[in-house]
C-alpha cells in the first residue's frame, strides 16, 4: 500500500497463558516486537516455543478459556487490538490482517466450493455483490497462479493438490489486500519444489501489494531468504531478535547458535558429525527459575540455573536473552566461526 515507512504493528510485553490441569502454561511470556510497513518478520522456534500462540493472540484467536491474554499491548496501525470489542476485531480480520495456516486442507471447508469460500470474504468486508465477488475471486485465483481460474473456481477443495490449496488460502487471505499477512508454517506440509513456488508467490505479492508479512517457521533456510528481521523463540520467550543477516552471521545467543549449527547445510558441508543440541525442549508448565535453556546449553554456568537471564541489547537492533550475550556475540564476530 503505502511506500513510506512507519510502524504497522507493535507488540509490547505480550503474555498469553493457558489454564491446564498441569498448571498454568505460559505459552507466550512477555514478548515484544515491532513490524514496519512492508517489512517481513520471521519468527523461528520449535514446537511449543509459543510462536503460533503469539500470532493467534495478535489475531485475537485464542480460545478463552482455557487461554487468556493476561497482559501486554497489541497496537495495529495505532489501534489497540487487545482492548477492541470482538465484533470490531472481526471487521479487521480478513480485511486488514489475514492469516494462512500450515495445513491448507483443514483450513478450507471441504463441503463448500472454492468460489463460495472466496466470495464470502469480499462480500463481508468490501460489500461486494455476488457478481463482483465472483469476478474478484477469479482475479485473485489468477493472481496466485492457479491455471484456468474460471473453471477451477467452482471446484471443491479436495479437487486441488496441496500446493494449489495453499494458493487458494493465499488468494483468500489477500482478497481484501490486507496490510498484514501472518503465514504460520505455510510450506511445512508441502514438497520442496512446491515450497519454492509458494515462497516466490509470497515474495511477489509482498512486493506488489506492499503487505507486511510475519512468517512463522521452524526452517532456518526459509527465513534466511525471505525476511528482513527475525525473532527466535524458546519456551514462550524471545531469545534473540536481530536483522536477518546479523542473526545468521553474528548470533548472540547459544540457542540460536545451536540451531544454526544443527542444520545440515548443502552449501558448505564437510561430512563431520552434525552438531546437536543435547536434551529436550522444556515442559513449559514447569519451568525452572533460571534460564529455560540452561539444561541444554553448552556454556551454562551456575548463574544460569538460579537467575533468569537479562534481555541484553547488543546494538541498536540486536537483543539477546542470555547472561553471556555479549561474550557469545564477541565469539561469533571475532572470527570464532
Amino acid at each position, binding site marked *: 500500500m503505502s511506500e513510506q515507512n512507519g510502524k504497522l504493528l507493535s507488540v509490547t510485553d505480550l503474555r498469553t497463558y493457558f489454564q491446564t490441569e498441569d498448571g498454568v502454561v505460559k505459552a507466550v511470556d512477555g514478548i515484544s516486537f515491532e513490524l514496519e510497513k512492508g517489512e517481513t518478520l520471521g519468527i523461528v522456534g*520449535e514446537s511449543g516455543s509459543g510462536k503460533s500462540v503469539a500470532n493467534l493472540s495478535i489475531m485475537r484467536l485464542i480460545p478463552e478459556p482455557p487461554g487468556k491474554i493476561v497482559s501486554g499491548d497489541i497496537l495495529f496501525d495505532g489501534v489497540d487490538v487487545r482492548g477492541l470489542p470482538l465484533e470490531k476485531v472481526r471487521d479487521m480480520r480478513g480485511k486488514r490482517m489475514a492469516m494462512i495456516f500450515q495445513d491448507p486442507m483443514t483450513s478450507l471447508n471441504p463441503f463448500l466450493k472454492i468460489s463460495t469460500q472466496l466470495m464470502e470474504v469480499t462480500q463481508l468486508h468490501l460489500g461486494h455483490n455476488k457478481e463482483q465477488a465472483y469476478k474478484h475471486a477469479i482475479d485473485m485465483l489468477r493472481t496466485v497462479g492457479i491455471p484456468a481460474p474460471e473453471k477451477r473456481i467452482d471446484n471443491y477443495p479436495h479437487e486441488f493438490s496441496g500446493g494449489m490449496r495453499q494458493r487458494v488460502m493465499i488468494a483468500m487471505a489477500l482478497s481484501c489486500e490486507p496490510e498484514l499477512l501472518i503465514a504460520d508454517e505455510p510450506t511445512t506440509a508441502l514438497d*520442496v*519444489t512446491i515450497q519454492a*513456488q509458494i515462497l516466490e508467490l509470497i515474495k511477489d505479492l509482498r512486493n506488489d501489494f506492499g503487505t507486511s508479512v510475519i512468517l512463522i517457521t521452524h526452517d*532456518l533456510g526459509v527465513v534466511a531468504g525471505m525476511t528482513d528481521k527475525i525473532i527466535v523463540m524458546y519456551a514462550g520467550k524471545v531469545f534473540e531478535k536481530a536483522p536477518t*543477516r546479523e542473526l545468521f552471521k553474528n548470533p548472540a545467543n547459544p540457542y540460536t547458535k545451536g*540451531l544454526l549449527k544443527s542444520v545440515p*547445510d548443502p552449501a558448505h558441508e564437510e561430512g563431520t*558429525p552434525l552438531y*546437536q543440541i543435547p536434551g529436550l525442549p522444556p515442559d513449559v508448565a514447569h519451568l525452572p527459575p533460571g534460564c529455560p535453556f540452561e539444561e541444554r546449553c553448552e556454556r551454562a554456568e551456575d548463574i544460569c540455573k538460579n537467575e533468569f537471564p537479562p534481555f541484553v541489547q547488543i546494538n541498536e537492533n540486536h537483543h539477546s536473552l542470555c547472561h553471556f550475550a555479549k561474550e557469545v556475540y564477541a565469539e561469533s564476530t571475532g572470527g570464532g566461526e
Partner: protein
Amino acid sequence: MSETNGNSMISLEDLKVYYDLGGGGLFDRLTGGSKERRVVKAVDGVTFDIKKGETLGLVGESGCGKSTLGKALLRLTTITGGRAIYKGKDIAHMTKSEMREQRKDLQMIFQDPYASLNPRMTVGNIIGEPIRTFGLANGKSVESMVQDLMETVGLSRRFIKRYPHEFSGGQRQRIGIARALAVDPEFIVADEPISALDVSIQAQIMNLMEDLQKEKHLTYLFISHDLRAIRHVADRVAVMYLGEIVELAEAKDIYEDPLHPYSKALISAVPVPDPEIEAEREHIILTGDVPSPINPPSGCHFHTRCQYAIDACKTTEPELVQIKPNHYSSCIRISPEQPNIEDA
C-alpha cells in the same frame, strides 16, 4: 549397475509395484465410470544395488513412490514384477514363512513415532516383542536385553514400564529404532525417520543412526524428502520421480553437480540457511505439480515440467545410464560426451 558382486546387500532388478484401481470393465463403461483400466505405477522398473555398510539416500516428492519402494524391500507390499535379491534369494518370490524369517535381518523405522507404536503396550513389551517372536531370548533375559537396547539408543533403563504417550517425539523415535535393532538386523529401511521431529531433535536422531551404523555395521536405505538431511547422512543418493530413478550418484556429486533437470530443480529449491547466499541464488522454479502416478506422462515422466524437454522426450523412455564415473542419470538429452543439459 547390476553387477551382483559380494559387495551388495540388496540388488534390485527392474522392480515394479503396481496398484490396480480397477475401471475399464463392462460395468464401468456402462455406468460412465473410467473407460480405461487405472493403474498406479508406484514403482516402475527400478534397478540399483544397495552396498553393504552404506547409507543409500532415496529422495523425491510425495507420491513419487519412495515409501512404496522401501516397503517392497521388506515385502510389506506385494511386488508386481522384477527381482529384489538379498543373499542370493529373491525377496519378491519368497514364501510367507521364508519372508518372516528374513525380517530378522531386514527391519524398518517409520516416519510417525506417534502412529507406529502401540499406545497400549509398555516400552518393554514394544521392544521385547520381536525378541520373543524370533525366540532370541526368553524369561528374564528379555528384560535385560530390552534395557540394554534402551541404553544403546539413549533412553534410560528405568523407563521400561512406561507407555509411548509418556515420551516426546524424539524419544519415541528412539523406541522405534530400539525395536528395529532388537533382532540384530543387517539392513534397515528408515522411512522419513526425522520428518516429524523438531530441528534440534533431528540432529540427535541422525547422529544416533550414524553411530549405530558404525557400531553394528548396518546398511540403511534412508528415505526422505529433506535433501539437507539426506546430504548429511547418505553415502550415495537416488533421486526418484513418479516411480522411476532419474539420478543415482555419490551424495557429494548429486549436490554439487546434479545432471538430471529434475535433480537440478529439486536441489535448487532447497533454501540455504544463509541470507547472503540466498540473496545471490537463482532458484529454478518448477511450474505445476507432480502429475498423477495413475497413467503417468508418456516417455520421460518429467517432460511435462522440464524446461529442456524436446518432442522426443514425450515418446522415448530414458534409461538410467552412466554419465560420469559412478554417476548415473536418465535423460535422453545428456550423455557421457554431453553431460551438461545446459549445453544440449
